[in-house]
């Protein structure tokens, strides 16, 4: 993996002439975890899809680039709310999907290591339907890790999980993705203050930064500073709505 660059996004988006969001400027720091919050429909997912290069509907004017000047294509990985596991493939084959799709030799040794890191070794041969929601999302994380990309785009990856599984997934993901440039869309202020090195609130009139609590992520959810930051973030979100 190349050293993670910072991610810069500047511009505005429209669909069929209707503005999705106005001119905004976002920078996700190199090797940092940036959380993007905002009310539904404000354009967070559109922004993420534009960066991923998979949005063919939105008209975008502006620039999206990495701080090192190298094109982003091929240096991104995507993790969504839906695990996007192929139901006909076993867990290990899902983890190796990227290599197969690029026509590369699948590295089974690395895949086994990634499955070990995500605690899925026992489930390697199972089909996704035999897994719980948390295990499926861990398999999606394993697939993301296997891609070994410096920039990661996460679109509410934990929002469909129960509270305990979500907290476990947050810890695991924070540990395993440490050192990469992560841009995560989330609706959950508690999640943002636990995981974010930077927090941005997106509103129709632009972005505003909210200071994260001090200390390395993942932060304890019950620490007073974390709880205070969560309250401040919620207030900021309500103000932006």
């Amino acid at each position: 993996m190349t050293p993670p660059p910072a991610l810069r996004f500047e511009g505005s988006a429209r669909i069929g002439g209707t503005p999705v969001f106005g001119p905004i400027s976002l920078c996700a720091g190199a090797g940092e975890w940036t959380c993007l919050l905002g009310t539904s429909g404000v354009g967070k997912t559109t922004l993420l899809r534009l960066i991923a290069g998979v949005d063919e509907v939105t008209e975008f004017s502006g620039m999206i680039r990495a701080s090192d000047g190298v094109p982003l294509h091929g240096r991104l990985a995507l993790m969504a709310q839906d695990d996007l596991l192929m139901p006909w493939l076993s867990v290990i084959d899902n983890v190796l999907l990227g290599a197969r799709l690029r026509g590369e030799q699948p590295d089974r040794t690395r895949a086994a290591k990634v499955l070990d890191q995500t605690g899925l070794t026992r489930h390697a041969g199972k089909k996704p339907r035999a897994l719980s929601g948390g295990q499926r999302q861990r398999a999606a994380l394993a697939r993301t890790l296997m891609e070994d990309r410096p920039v990661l785009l996460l679109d509410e990856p934990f929002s469909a999980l129960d509270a305990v599984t979500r907290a476990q997934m947050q810890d695991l993901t924070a540990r395993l993705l440490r050192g990469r440039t992560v841009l995560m869309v989330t609706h959950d202020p508690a999640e943002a203050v636990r995981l974010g090195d930077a927090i941005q609130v997106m509103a129709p009139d632009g972005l505003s930064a909210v200071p994260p609590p001090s200390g390395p992520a993942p932060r304890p959810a019950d620490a007073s500073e974390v709880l205070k930051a969560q309250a401040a973030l919620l207030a900021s979100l309500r103000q932006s709505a």
Partner: protein
Amino acid sequence: MTTGSTFPRQARRAAWLLGSLVLALGLWQSVVWLAVPPPYILPGPVEVAAEFIASGQMILRHAGFTLTEVILGLLLGTVLGAGSAVALAASRVARALLRPIMVFSQAIPVFVIAPILMLWFGYGIWPKVMMALLIIYFPVTSAFFDALMRTPQPWLDLARVMGAHRGRVMRHVRIPAALPGLASGLRLAAVYAPIGVIISEWVGASRGIGYLVLWANSRSKVDLMFATTMTLAAMTLLLYAAVDAACRRWLDRPGS
């Protein structure tokens, strides 16, 4: 799904099937008892069963020929239909060029094509196989193509971000995701293919179920016509069940 819950469901289904068969036979026998039609118009189920026992060997021999033609037609039609669907899904040019031809071909009734096929391929097995192929080609292509065009967009986005090649997305994502659609087409094909073969056997054949029905008709052997027709129906049902079972088994592990 556990075996414990599957077995009673299958047993219940079998019981209902048996019940509807008994009901149909009962209705048929009641009509014969009540209306008392002459046996050369409507024989009763008992007479038909007796005829099947008497001429069973001959009926089954002809059924064997028909079944061979149906299976060959099914295999060729499936290969051609699935191949066409993939080509159509993969290429905009193929879609623009071939879809109008395919739709136009469906506007020609297969009955009209049967004599032409005989003219081209003779009286042997091939016009029958071609007829089965033609009749199943569109349903197989159409069902598989529709499914290929409905791959969930998030899967395609994921593949794109992974840097996938187009051909490999087709092979590793779109085709496996569309196999249930192909299976629907194959189930339809299992029912349609015998129709194509029978039409072709009517037009010109010296063996097969279609030939035997016409032969029995020309000799007013109505009970033989019924016994042959029932054999064809049973054959089609068994073929459907076999294709359905194969599809279910296959879909349980389509990517492996």
